[in-house]
């Protein structure tokens, strides 16, 4: 028997169905690398302890961390170099740097949220949210008075600003993206520039044009006008991005059916971009809801509930917080406690708006609704269960409705996908 070895022809192995297919596991970080990091971390920790605590008279947690981190870098580089050479050693060190930078970026976010929550939590109560400061001095204990008037003022002022700038911003974006013309380039450029106008300058502008000549008094209305200037570029730009995502084929189809420009925009472009438009409005709200500087120049502040933004003196949440900061006599005093609690409420509002804009899915609403409801139940059960229970139920109902609406909007429109905010 002769063995026929023909190397000039490819050898084809017939597939064997009995051998199960096996997925190849792609390893991004090898075991060697992990071991190296652990070794570097432990080694540098020991060395840091030795140097920092024993050999030099240095102290302090922050310095310890910095020293440890620096040593960790050196050790990682050395270990990598010994094992794999200089090129990969550089790679390892840069990887440590970049990962550290990303971690550092998130530390303040967590720190701010945690410290506002822990400081503001104690004084928060149902009464605090619903009463005003009309018969309470700033040094009166926290159990008296509240921020209901400031919440009402903020909602009204931001609502008015939204009513002004969302239609204007959407129409401007329609001009930029649908109508166009010679003016489009400068408008786009100035919208960019406008988004960088310092907020205090917006306040100065409203003061200079409307308040100083006496057309408008210091009021919620003036504050709303200042905020709407801040909001306008945000709404315009995000809307423009959303409109750009509407496929051009839809416009052509509409024109080919004999539609006018106006009908194309109203019946095809805007409905297709619907959920994106909601997002851009919410982002506009998020931009201005915490703004303080323009309000310092345009609203007067107040101690009582005031419902009419055009006539009454109104208070706004950021303005209130700044006022309490100025009156604060030190940590733990009533004004200080009020400041932190009001800041927590403001932070909660901002987070809610942000989550709504970012995750317009049913899950986000369920999460926010349930969290709010649970918090209310838990927090307010002792003080006023009679009020708390119906409100909780309402919140759950509202979030359920929001779920339904969000689902509907999502089914109807697929333009919000990939909208960068």
């Amino acid at each position: 028997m002769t063995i026929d070895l023909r190397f000039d022809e490819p050898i084809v192995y017939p597939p064997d169905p009995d051998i199960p297919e096996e997925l190849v596991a792609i390893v991004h970080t090898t075991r060697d690398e992990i071991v190296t990091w652990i070794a570097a971390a432990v080694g540098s920790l020991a060395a840091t302890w030795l140097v920092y605590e024993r050999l030099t008279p240095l102290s302090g947690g922050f310095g310890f961390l910095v020293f440890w981190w620096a040593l960790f870098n050196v050790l990682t580089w050395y270990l990598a170099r010994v094992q794999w050479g200089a090129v990969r050693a550089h790679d390892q060190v840069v990887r440590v740097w970049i990962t550290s930078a990303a971690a550092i970026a998130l530390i303040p976010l967590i720190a701010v949220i945690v410290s506002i929550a822990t400081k503001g939590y104690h004084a928060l109560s149902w009464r605090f949210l619903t009463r005003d400061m009309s018969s309470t001095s700033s040094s009166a204990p926290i159990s008296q008075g509240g921020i209901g008037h400031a919440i009402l003022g903020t909602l009204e002022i931001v609502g008015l600003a939204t009513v002004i700038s969302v239609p204007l911003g959407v129409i401007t974006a329609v001009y930029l993206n649908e109508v166009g013309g010679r003016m489009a380039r400068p408008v786009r450029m100035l919208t960019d520039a406008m988004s960088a106008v310092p907020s205090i300058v917006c306040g100065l502008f409203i003061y200079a044009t409307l308040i100083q000549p006496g057309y408008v008094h210091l009021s919620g209305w003036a504050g709303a006008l200042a905020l709407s200037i801040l909001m306008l570029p945000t709404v315009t730009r995000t809307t423009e991005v959303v409109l750009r995502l509407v496929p051009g084929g839809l416009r052509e189809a509409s024109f080919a059916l004999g539609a006018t420009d106006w009908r194309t925009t109203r019946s095809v472009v805007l409905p297709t971009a619907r959920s994106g438009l909601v997002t851009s409005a919410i982002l506009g709200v998020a931009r201005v809801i915490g703004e303080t500087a323009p309000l310092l120049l345009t609203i007067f502040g107040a101690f009582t509930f005031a419902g009419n933004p055009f006539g009454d003196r109104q208070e706004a949440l950021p303005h209130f917080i700044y006022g309490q900061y100025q009156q604060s006599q030190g940590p733990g005093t009533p004004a200080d406690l009020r400041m932190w609690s009001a800041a927590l409420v403001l932070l909660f509002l901002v987070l809610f708006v942000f989550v709504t804009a970012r995750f317009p899915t049913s899950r986000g609403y369920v999460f926010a609704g349930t969290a709010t409801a649970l918090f209310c139940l838990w927090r307010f059960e002792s003080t006023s269960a009679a009020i708390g229970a119906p409100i909780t139920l309402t919140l759950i109902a509202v979030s359920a409705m929001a779920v339904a609406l969000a689902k509907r909007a999502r089914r109807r429109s697929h333009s919000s996908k990939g909208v960068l905010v």
Partner: protein
Amino acid sequence: MTLVSDAASHAAPTNDAISRASTLTAQGVSAWFGSHKVLERVSLDMLANQVTALIGPSGCGKSTFLRILNRMHELVPSARLAGNIALDGQDIYRSAAPVTEIRRRIGMVFQKPNPFPAMSVAENVVSGLKLCGMKVERSHKDELVETCLQKAGLWNEVKNRLDANGGALSGGQQQRLCIARSLAVRPDVLLMDEPCSALDPTSTHRIEETIAELRDDVTIVIVTHNMQQAQRVSHYCAFFLAAENEPGRIVEAGTTDKIFSEPDDPRTLDYVRGRFG
């Protein structure tokens, strides 16, 4: 007859008042994008109730020519053109008729199906009425939806889900939905820009059937790269060709039988036999 017609006169297309087709004439049509000339003095008659196929290799100006026919060409900022295009003898570029009315009378179906995603199937069909500002009664509307979907050969497939999103249909169904949408505004001419190039053979077959049924109602101009399709659906054929760095021209036009069996020009024969292009 005039191009400008009272909006009320075509208010409610119904079964018994089926649109009569018109002849579309192009004479000496040239087109430019910026200073680049893409089409050179094209003249072609597209006869009423006939299907005219425009064939030729890519980049020879077929689609540009088609878009000139219902004034979609001018939507491109740098686009210019010369020549005469007349619908039943009325020049569509120089008459006083609003451009929207011209586009309503000369409908268009695009290469890629593009139903409006924010509307249901039924809403898509009647979307043209809304977009043209035509008022139709509700009962008429339902009737119109059914008529148009039937003409487009889609009624049996979607009659139970008229409220579904237009994007939920398959590619072939979407394209037929777009045809139905175009029919709802009662066009005289229907331009089709490679309507089957994004579809599978079965869907293509359904659309070809639809075209065959429609030619009693409208004049059809279709751009296609598929020789067999041109042979199957069209009565007349125009062969476009662009030499290197030159604008596209019509090499030859005539009945489909003649173009495919014994064309005058050897280049046409080469193309229809698949020898180049």
